[in-house]
């Protein structure tokens, strides 16, 4: 009888002893979830000094459209290509073409025209760049006689060749560009 009473008294204590670790773990997990919800949803990290390649797709489209319109206004293809480059599109030609189609479908024909114009210019620019890269280097001897950093002076007169007769040598003529 006495033994049974002791058993009855001690039995409610045993689960409490086993729960010792579990309630701490529950608190820890609860805190962890609350912390993550706060850090990811309520007050997430705000990025500053970001790159255009990290913009969301809608903003990238606006950026791309501005590049195309600026190209249509200035005709500066090199600058447009550099600007497109920072958007980090896998294929800028495809991205421009796809956006032009979307703009056309939504009735923004001016925007579509600018985008298509830049797309075609970029395609030829890419082809030119590839040609330049695939051209084998000139032999060293030839490279040495090429003029460097000499820009032609712009004149309104087109270039012509003049043949001058050399009186000292009847067989020889001097050819000058003038």
């Amino acid at each position, binding site marked *: 009888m006495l033994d049974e009473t002791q058993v009855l008294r001690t039995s409610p204590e045993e689960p409490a002893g086993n729960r010792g670790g579990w*309630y701490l773990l529950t608190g820890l997990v609860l805190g*962890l979830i609350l912390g993550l919800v706060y*850090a990811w949803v309520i007050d997430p990290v705000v990025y500053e000094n970001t790159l255009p390649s990290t913009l969301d797709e809608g903003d990238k489209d606006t950026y791309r459209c501005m590049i195309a319109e600026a190209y249509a206004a200035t005709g500066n293809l090199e600058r447009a290509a550099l600007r497109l480059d920072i958007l980090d599109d896998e294929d800028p030609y495809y991205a421009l073409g796809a956006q032009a189609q979307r703009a056309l479908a939504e009735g923004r024909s001016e925007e579509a025209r600018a985008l298509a114009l830049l797309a075609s210019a970029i395609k030829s620019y890419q082809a030119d760049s590839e040609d330049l890269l695939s051209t084998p280097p000139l032999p060293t001897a030839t490279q040495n006689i090429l003029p460097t950093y000499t820009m032609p002076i712009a004149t309104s007169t087109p270039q012509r060749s003049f043949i001058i007769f050399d009186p000292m040598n009847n067989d020889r003529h001097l050819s000058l560009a003038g």
Partner: protein
Amino acid sequence: MGRRNRRLIFFVLAILVGLAAGLFSGWELNPVPFKGTSPDSLRVDYKGDIVLMIAELYEAEGDSGEALTRLAFLGDEDPASIVEEAVVFAEEHNYTAEDLVLMRALLTALDASSEVLY
């Protein structure tokens, strides 16, 4: 202190430890992905280039209203101060004289249009 109170204190402490771990993980170790950022968070040189694009378009179109609409892409800040910041950056970083002229022309146009409004 009763056993029950001690357990409650440890439970709250466990929550606080978990909270700290969650915040550290969410802000430092594994923050929200670096994608889908907004244009107003762009680095100052990229903002400057966008202002230059808008100045190039303003030079071609002469439409300050359209320029204001385009500047709204860079956020809610006052458009004139966005352009002013870009001009200062351009001056400090030796933009070409032509680009500076375009940007200053845009700034002048925005100042003029804000004077008309107020």
